[in-house]
């Protein structure tokens, strides 16, 4: 009864328990709403707050990166000559570095043995040289399987590649490559000497230079002086060691019917010795320079 009376002070005067309960219900819902509103607002608020923090963090990070980049650019520009006003971007810098490394890799071939990794193994380039002259390069493409194998190559067919690979390829690749290098360099050197003789000293030769694929047998008839009264000698050079560029056997003979004078015999023996000790084209260079001296000896 009291309850009913106190409630009747709030506006509408209604009677009964049900009406009272109704009024209580609306009160509760009103209170609940009031409580929720600040909560959702708060939720939205906090969400926005965290977003702001995130964006601030991102902004600071980007700022730091930009500062770093600028610092790097400054550092690289300080290495460039002061009169270069171009700004080198990072991309260009890396490009230059890459080209530099590439050039070094390309220059490696001057060391004699160089290689490049392939999908199957390695492609080795053997460069040959003689007396400071760069000569031909030869390639061996190796498949690096459990027994290493040669995939394909550019080694001339008369170089004993099968023999060398049978001996060393399976057990010691380094030795295989060094041996091959030895054979190829020696062959190139012998070939160079024979080519030089044929081209530069043709005037000294009385007939064609006889040679073979390996350039390990050379036979020719020559005169120590291209013009003049000297008699031709026949030289036969054998290179029994395929890893050397100097002959192992030399025979110089006289192609005439009458007996050799002592001076001629001395000359013959001296020439033999020359062929043993000096590369072929150098022997003929010395003939060319000695020309005058020999003439004098003949006259006397």
């Amino acid at each position, binding site marked *: 009864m009291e309850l009913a009376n106190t409630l009747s002070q709030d506006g509408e005067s209604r009677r009964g328990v049900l009406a009272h309960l109704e009024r209580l219900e609306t009160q509760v819902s009103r209170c609940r709403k009031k409580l929720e509103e600040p909560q959702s607002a708060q939720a939205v608020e906090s969400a926005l707050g965290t977003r702001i923090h995130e964006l601030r963090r991102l902004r600071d990070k980007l700022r730091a990166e930009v500062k770093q980049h600028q610092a790097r650019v400054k550092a690289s520009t300080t290495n460039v000559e002061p009169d270069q006003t171009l700004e080198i971007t990072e991309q260009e810098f890396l490009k230059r570095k890459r080209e530099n490394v*590439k050039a070094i*890799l*390309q220059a*490696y*071939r001057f060391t004699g043995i*160089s290689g*490049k990794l*392939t999908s199957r193994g390695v*492609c080795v*380039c053997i460069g040959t040289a003689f007396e400071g002259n760069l000569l031909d390069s030869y*390639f061996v*493409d190796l498949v690096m399987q459990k027994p290493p194998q040669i995939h*394909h*190559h*550019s080694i001339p*067919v*008369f170089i004993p590649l099968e023999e060398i690979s049978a001996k060393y390829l399976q057990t010691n690749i380094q030795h295989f490559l060094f041996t091959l290098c030895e054979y190829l360099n020696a062959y190139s050197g012998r070939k160079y000497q024979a080519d030089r003789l044929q081209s530069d000293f043709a005037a000294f030769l009385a007939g064609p230079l*006889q*040679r*073979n*694929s*390996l350039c*390990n*047998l050379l*036979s020719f008839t020559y005169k120590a002086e291209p013009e003049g009264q000297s008699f031709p000698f026949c030289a036969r050079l*054998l290179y*029994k*060691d*395929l890893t050397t560029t100097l002959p192992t056997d030399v025979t110089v003979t006289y192609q005439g019917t009458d007996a050799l004078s002592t001076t001629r015999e001395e000359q013959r023996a001296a020439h033999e010795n020359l062929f043993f000790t000096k590369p072929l084209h150098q022997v003929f260079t010395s003939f060319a320079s000695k020309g005058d001296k020999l003439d004098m000896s003949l006259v006397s």
Partner: protein
Amino acid sequence: MRRELAGDVGRAKEMDETVSEFFRRTILKIPMTEMMTILKTWNFLSENQLQTVNFRQRKESLVQDLVLLCEENRASLKDAALLDIIYTQFHRHQKVWDVFQMSKGPGEDIDLFDMEQFKSSFKKILKRALKNVTVSFRDAEENAVWIRIAWGTQYRKPNQYKPAYVVYYSQTPYAFTSSSQLKSNLPLLGQALTIASKHHQIVKMDLRSRYLDSLKAIVFKQYNQTFETHNSTTPLQERSLGLDINMDSRIIHENKIEKERVQRVTQEIFGDYPQPRLEFAQYKLETKFKSDLNGGILAEREEPLRCLVKFSSPHLLEALKSLAPAGIADAPLSPLLTCIPNKGMNYFKIRDK
């Protein structure tokens, strides 16, 4: 004295008739477009003499004039044989070439090959066995020699119109011979080659073609000469995969992955280099019949079936290379087809294991 002279002239004329006929026929073979080049290579008729000849006249008359010049220069059979060699060198594809492989014994000394010794030894062996034989040599590039052999018999003079040719690269185990009509002389030829080049054995390889240079590339293993180096300017990835990049982007290749796989496999097997040229591959099969179906007359046959399968093409290896990309065959191709350059064979005998 005068009588002797007359006799000499008579004899000289007799010899000249067969030789001049040989000259006439050899020069007649030469196409007009190559006449000057071949004559200059031969270097037997001087520049002045060649200038006196009218090269615009009819071929028969030209040949007559040239033969007269040869007679003036007292040309011999040797000179005619040399001209024949030069003609054959220019027209090497007209002959079919076989390949022989020689071998030495184990632990042989270093090969100190002397070309003059080889030539004289080769000639001596043939002449000792056959009195009537003409042997001529011509040096070629890369320390090789072309040998021409005209065969005769004990009682007949050598037939100059059916010579055999041998091409030998010094200090290699391979010799290339043009298929001689007279097969009975082959063992003697093999013997002469082996002994003169200081080898012990000679074996005929199962490799034959008109293209001498391709045979050389195959046995000397010179056909694949592309090597990866740091100095090469073309990167390997730039190879187009055969699919047109410029095609309309609205068109999609449904089996693009398969196509790329086929291209990759083909490239791995055949490489990027031009294939050596062969005209055929021949497979002699002697195998038992194999069938999935049980029964049937052939399934019970004990004896193997014999058949011959021959692939022919103007350029066999290029044709084989294009089979899988064209969709005609599966990739990878049968190793019986792809092993041809590697094994140096284009004749195969296949039997059951």
